[in-house]
């Protein structure tokens, strides 16, 4: 599967209503540190300083105790594939089949869904370990993909 270019993941970066990639800067998003970390190749989320609750995705208020005293925490470096599928039909505009989507479980008890990139669909198995692969998106943005751990 060929690597996606940034343009593959965007419809029209100048029309917000057609642009599914999130805004990632402090002037538009209170969880912007997530994206700053991502630019440093760190996958992070928020943990509550008051009750210890951790969630994915990151938040500005703890969904367990409503505290806004949250801190950023790194994910374990590798995750494990719980399930995956290769989408070959009906892919949205800006995307190219085949797309390998995986449910990735981490030791911190969190699960992420994301496409695997730089990955031959035939090489993927349930239980395989995967690592983060940061991909650039239009207007200086980034997205968190994964790839098989070599």
């Amino acid at each position, binding site marked *: 599967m060929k690597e996606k270019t940034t343009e593959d993941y965007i419809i029209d970066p100048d029309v917000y209503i057609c642009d599914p990639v999130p805004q990632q800067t402090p002037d538009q998003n209170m969880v912007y540190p997530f994206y700053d970390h991502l630019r440093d190749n760190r996958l992070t989320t928020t943990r509550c300083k008051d009750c210890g609750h951790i969630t994915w995705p990151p938040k500005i208020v703890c969904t367990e105790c409503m505290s806004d005293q949250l801190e950023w925490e790194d994910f374990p470096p590798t995750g494990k594939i719980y399930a995956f599928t290769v989408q070959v039909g009906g892919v*949205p505009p*800006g995307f190219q089949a085949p797309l390998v989507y995986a449910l990735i479980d981490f030791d911190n008890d969190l699960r992420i869904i994301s496409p695997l990139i730089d990955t031959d669909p035939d090489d993927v198995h349930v239980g395989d370990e995967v690592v983060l692969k940061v991909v650039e998106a239009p207007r200086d943005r980034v997205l968190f993909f994964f790839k098989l751990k070599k």
Partner: protein
Amino acid sequence: MGQKRVALVAAGITKFGKRKATFRDLIAEAGKATFDSNKNISPKDVKAFIISTVYPERSAFQGHPAPLAAEWCGVRPTEFHERVENQCGSGTSAIRTAYAAIMSGLTDLVMVVGVEKVMVPSHKEIFLNAMAGSDREWESCFGVTPPPLFAMVAQAHMQKFGTTEEQLALVSVKNHNHSKTNPYAHHQKGATLEQVMTSRLIAAPLKLFDCSTNTDGAAGVIVALEERAKSLTDKPVYILGTAQINDGYPWVAYPKDWSTWPSLRFAAQKAYEMAGIGPKDVDVAEVHDCFTISEIIEYEELGFCKKGEGGRFVEDGQSDYGGEVVVNPSGGLIACGHPFGATGVRQAWEAYIQLRDEAGTRQVKGAEIFLGHNLSGLGEHHILIYGRS
């Protein structure tokens, strides 16, 4: 005075399909069909109106649909009106809201119209609009839409319970064959097992015929307090029970084992209790077959069969005429198509005709209890149970 009750007193539907019609054309057509179904009610009798619709803001560049829809149906509401939305479960949510509005005393009769204009001329935009339905910031931005998600549900169920691709396909065969007698369905040609099994792969193990179809359509019902209902028809269709749940958002926040849907089990239990019945009492059901695997898991969680035996249930013909319960006699989402805001209302329309013996060749003989079910996610379920009395 006994417990207040609420009943359907009218129901109508449009042809589902790639319609040569605007958002509001569909509404007007469903409105007319609804009033045509019961000549004792005219638009001027209706003082409360709910529209169920998911994204006209995108597909029709049209917000604020409630007063538009009311007006196009000839209704000027003075007691209650609004738009209700819950993605794929919008229709059932809207009817629940009508139930609540009536039981609360704010009104005694509500018209509910469900509608979706999905088929915009640009194929690209149909898919783009679909992306708004999941978590845009953490999931949709990667192009995640329901097909790959339910493909992983299917894999989990196949792995854990031995469900086969043929069993999935048999759901589609059954529903496509049912729709041959439903002139309003998007697909009416039926399908063979071979056709389903050899249809184009979407995301393994799901093929094109395992998936519901994008379509345009609308449906309407009128709901009334029992006393009023009885004055409008001699065969009201009563709402006996209802339940609703959401167990986590986004997709990855659901419980980790995607082969079981405990939240649906919980909601079904609640709805049965409210109705004073059990799953064996259900004669006919319209359940949310957005994908074939969904219907199989729904058999199990709704209690029509044991957990893990959903595949065998359809294989044995237990969800077809002559079986334990006739599931999706209309053809379901797979054959009718799935115009999001309309689907739950279409199910209520099927309840109305089935429990009044007006379903023609697809009538489930002697049906007394009907169950309608929508989902808007693995853990988000909406249930209504209807009865003849």
